[in-house]
């Protein structure tokens, strides 16, 4: 479970996040939806602890990310916005590097890598160097790298960005599989169809604030719109009118 509690962050005069609160539950996929520059990345970065919030706190499975960073991160897998690989290392070495930094034993790493390789369909290229990997192969390795320590929670920042159709489809299946394993999945996106197709809950962010936090159906019903896209626009429009 990932909890954001009244998170706020400003960069100079820009308030990137204002009093952001939401909960991403286990066994669910939570989508963080917002336009570019809405503050999604800032929120996620505070959740995985590379940014320090000016106010509020973030907890992973009830562990404060600022207070006990290492312990909280052990429960968290992160796929940041930029998820580059080391081109001179093989897929396996890329994954094992992160695993060993998580403190995993060599034996555990071996079995876990084999597990992930099978689950993500990486057997064909696991021993190849990352140089020349396709986007689909890269995202698989990056995801495996984020999951190597078997975390209960996974945060993905715009994971579908720049991926082709096949890779997006693959990723979608992988996220659903994670949900099926009872993990808490939180990902950000500015593509509504993606969120509508995958998510159990949607948190809509605009101007650094949470505009809506509900299930996809609830949002649709509340706004009286037929699709999430219309609902999304409705939410943005409503808040603009109100504020």
């Amino acid at each position: 479970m990932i909890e954001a509690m009244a998170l706020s962050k400003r960069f100079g005069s820009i308030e990137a996040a204002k009093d952001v609160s939401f909960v991403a539950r286990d066994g669910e996929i939570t989508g963080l939806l917002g336009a570019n520059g809405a503050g999604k990345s800032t929120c996620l970065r505070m959740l995985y602890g590379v940014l320090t919030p000016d106010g509020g706190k973030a907890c992973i499975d009830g562990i404060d990310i600022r207070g006990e960073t290492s312990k909280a991160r052990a429960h968290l897998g992160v796929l940041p916005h930029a998820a580059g690989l080391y081109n001179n290392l093989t897929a396996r070495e890329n994954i094992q590097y992160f695993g060993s930094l998580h403190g995993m034993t060599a034996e555990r790493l071996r079995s876990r890598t084999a597990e992930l390789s099978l689950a993500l369909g990486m057997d064909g290229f696991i021993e190849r160097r990352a140089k020349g990997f396709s986007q689909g192969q890269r995202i698989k390795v990056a995801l495996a790298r984020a999951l190597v320590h078997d975390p209960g929670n996974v945060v993905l920042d715009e994971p579908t960005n720049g991926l082709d159709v096949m890779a997006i489809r693959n990723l979608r299946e992988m996220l659903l599989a994670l949900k099926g394993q009872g993990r808490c999945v939180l990902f950000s996106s500015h593509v509504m169809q993606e969120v509508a197709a995958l998510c159990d809950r949607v948190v809509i962010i605009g101007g650094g604030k949470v505009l809506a936090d509900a299930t996809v159906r609830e949002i649709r019903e509340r706004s009286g719109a037929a699709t999430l896209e219309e609902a999304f626009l409705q939410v943005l429009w409503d808040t603009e009118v109100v504020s």
Partner: protein
Amino acid sequence: MRTLFIVFAKEFLENLRDRRTLLSALLFGPLFGPILFGLMVSRMLEQSVVESDVPLKLTISGSQHAPGLTQYLKARGAKLTLSELSENEARAAVRGGGSQVVLLVPEEYSRLFTAAQPAPILLFADSADSQTRKIADRTRRVLAAYGSTIAQLRLQMRGVSPLLSQPVAVNEVDVATPTGRAVVVLGFMTYFVLFALLMGGLYLAIDSTAGERERGSLEALLSLPVARAALVGGKILATCAYMCISLALSLTAFVCVFRFVPLERIGMSANLGLRTALIFFAICLPFVPLGATLMTLVASFTRTYREAQTYLTSVLLVPTLPIAFASIYSLKTRSSLMFIPSLSQHLLMTSVLKDEPILLRDVLVSAAASLGVALLLFVLTARHWRRETMLG
């Protein structure tokens, strides 16, 4: 500690597979200096060997007017080519490169010489050509020696002591040891050693910081449950390892190159054997972490490979500054200078080359100062890595 080792092992392996790193660390850096240097020194030596070993070659015209002089030149081992040239022909011969120096004895020479008047001799040479200039200088010296011999004889014949014409007797005492003389030539070698040392870690320092950011693996790395100081520490350690390899290769190359440079032929010994190389390695070793941390710190502020390269190229020049000062002010090894990194290494290495004794205390102070600066830079680097701005 575990993190440190894991990061070290990964960076070491990754860069071992990188052609760019290998080329600069293991080939260009260590070999560039010694080879350039070997060529430079042997060329310089060849030129100075010419002076004492090769006979003076001269073309002389009108030698029949000055038989005494001709005899004297022959006695001094000069190789004379006798010919009959007019003034213009002599000029053309030197310009055309046919002969390098031409002595032209005019007809009135013998008359004036016998009359004890200044007898003219024309010396044709091209002062723009450094080879010719040297021969001309030698010719001038021989002619001056001949002149003073004749002058002394004339004075003696007239019953005057030739000593009267020598109010001052200058005796030069050259205190340079054979190795000391070589040091003038070898002075710049220390810079090449420090250059190779830095080059060895240059690309790794860039790759593990700006490179990590550029390829987008940095944020994932920073999201791991590990101490940032250990992360960057491991990177610096890997950089150090490459620098040590580069340093060792560079010194080995120097030892090999000086096997082939004929320093002994002009009475110098380079004093650069295996033992000296090992001492050099020990002297330079404390400078390795300093260079690695400095390069990593600078590269950590940059966003791209290219930007990092630009900044680090100037860092490569940093060790030259103290060395340049040292040669401008001709500084000698002194305990108070041991606090300045790169300068202290330069001075200590120079002392070793000169075969001068070096104090263990100086070596220790030099090492402690370098390591101290390295530690300070490391604290700054680790602090920078803990900042949010590291994400870029």
